């Protein structure tokens, strides 16, 4: 039956035509297409790899960024803490110095007051001494106004000095 027996003429022509077309296409057809396709798939694969790498780098950047932020925040709080400390210290120092100054002023004032008091007392004493001499003079002048009293005083003075020699 001709259906399942290959015809020689057809075999012959099929080999010839298929062979020629295959030769032409294997030389000028398929390699050009497949080379281009390979080139493109290589490019796509490379792009995907690059994208992955960039993504990984971005992720690491994000971590780094977070770390930097954390460090900055720490530094900030550190600076704030130090500033607060310095402020406290300055205030304390100022207070100490003020107290010292006040003490010194007080002391000075005291010594001055003391000195004033001393000189005032001295003046008072001098005044009193002068007054008493004056009074004594006046008293004496009054008491020794008469002859009798002068005599009495003389006698008394003699007596006293006599007594003193006897003693």
């Amino acid at each position, binding site marked *: 039956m001709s259906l399942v027996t290959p*015809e020689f003429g057809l075999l012959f022509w099929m080999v010839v035509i298929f062979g020629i077309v295959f030769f*032409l*296409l294997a030389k000028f057809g398929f390699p050009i297409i497949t080379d281009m*396709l390979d080139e493109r798939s290589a490019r796509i694969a490379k792009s995907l790899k690059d994208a992955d790498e960039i993504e990984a780098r971005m992720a690491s950047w994000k971590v780094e960024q977070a770390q930097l932020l954390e460090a900055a925040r720490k530094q900030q709080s550190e600076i704030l803490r130090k500033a607060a400390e310095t402020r406290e210290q300055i205030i304390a120092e100022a207070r100490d110095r003020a107290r010292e100054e006040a003490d010194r002023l007080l002391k000075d004032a005291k010594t001055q007051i003391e000195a004033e008091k001393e000189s005032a007392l001295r003046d008072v004493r001098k005044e009193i001494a002068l007054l008493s001499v004056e009074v004594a003079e006046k008293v004496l002048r009054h008491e020794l106004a008469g002859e009798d009293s002068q005599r009495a005083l003389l006698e008394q003075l003699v007596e006293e000095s006599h007594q003193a020699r006897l003693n």
Partner: protein
Amino acid sequence: MILTFLISLLLAADIHVGEIIFEHIGDEYEWHITQWKGKDIAIPLPCIVIEDGVHVFTLHHARENGYSLNEDGKLVNAATGKRPLDLSITKNVLSIMLSSLLLLVVVLLTARWYRRHDVLKESPTGLAALMEPLVMMVHEMARENIGPDYRKFSPYLCMAFLWILFNNFLGILPFFPGGANLTGNIAVTLVLALFTFFTVNLNGTKHYYKEIFAPDVPGFLKPIMPLIEVFSALMKPVSLTIRLFANMLAGHIMILSMVCMIFIMAKYGPALFGGMTLVSVLLGAFLDALECLVAFIQAYVFTMLSSIYIGLARQKEE
């Protein structure tokens, strides 16, 4: 094929389904296109016969050149009744030429697109966009099945796949230049399978031939295994041949039968005729759709198996 068939049947007086079907799946010395007012319209093709020199003539002049057709419809020497060396450009040969030319033009145009455009910057358009997925599919198949030196074999696989695919679809097409039952012809599929066979066995590695002729098996199997292996290597192209041939032939016969049904039923009154016509048209449409699927699948399977066979032959010793 179906359209031709319909018209020719409308004018046919009697219906011999078997004859009609075999005529359509077989080969002819002229390309019968249709019948018009009782006359055959056909493209005459050159008959080339080599017997004591080359004789070239058309079928109409066969008798004058001393040749006639035998019961299979083949040219024989009218005097001796023997088959001469027949290299006629038959319907199938012309169909091979046309489809190969089509494939050549399509692939070369696609290649030209790739030569003229930067594939890294542009996506393919037109023909290139159509052909690229097909070529890429086969190329990837070669890469997966063959291994490191797949590039050498990728053109053959692309060629086989596209050639079978083109001819499968042209076979489904019912009118000129389609309609020839090429991939359902055993000579054509045999040549395709032999191309694969020689590609496989001319590129076999030492390891491949060692596996065939001196496989590593227990002693008592030593004399039998080479026989089995050689047989298996020879059966591979046979299975490729028959798989493609039978699948495509069966599809053609099924569709033709569906169409014939309409004309057979014409005798049995209008009710049955109308009913069966509807059923036949629906089933025929379904089968045509199925054939489109089969056309692709068979091309794919042939190429896939070819690539696997080549891959096996290219295996290196582990």
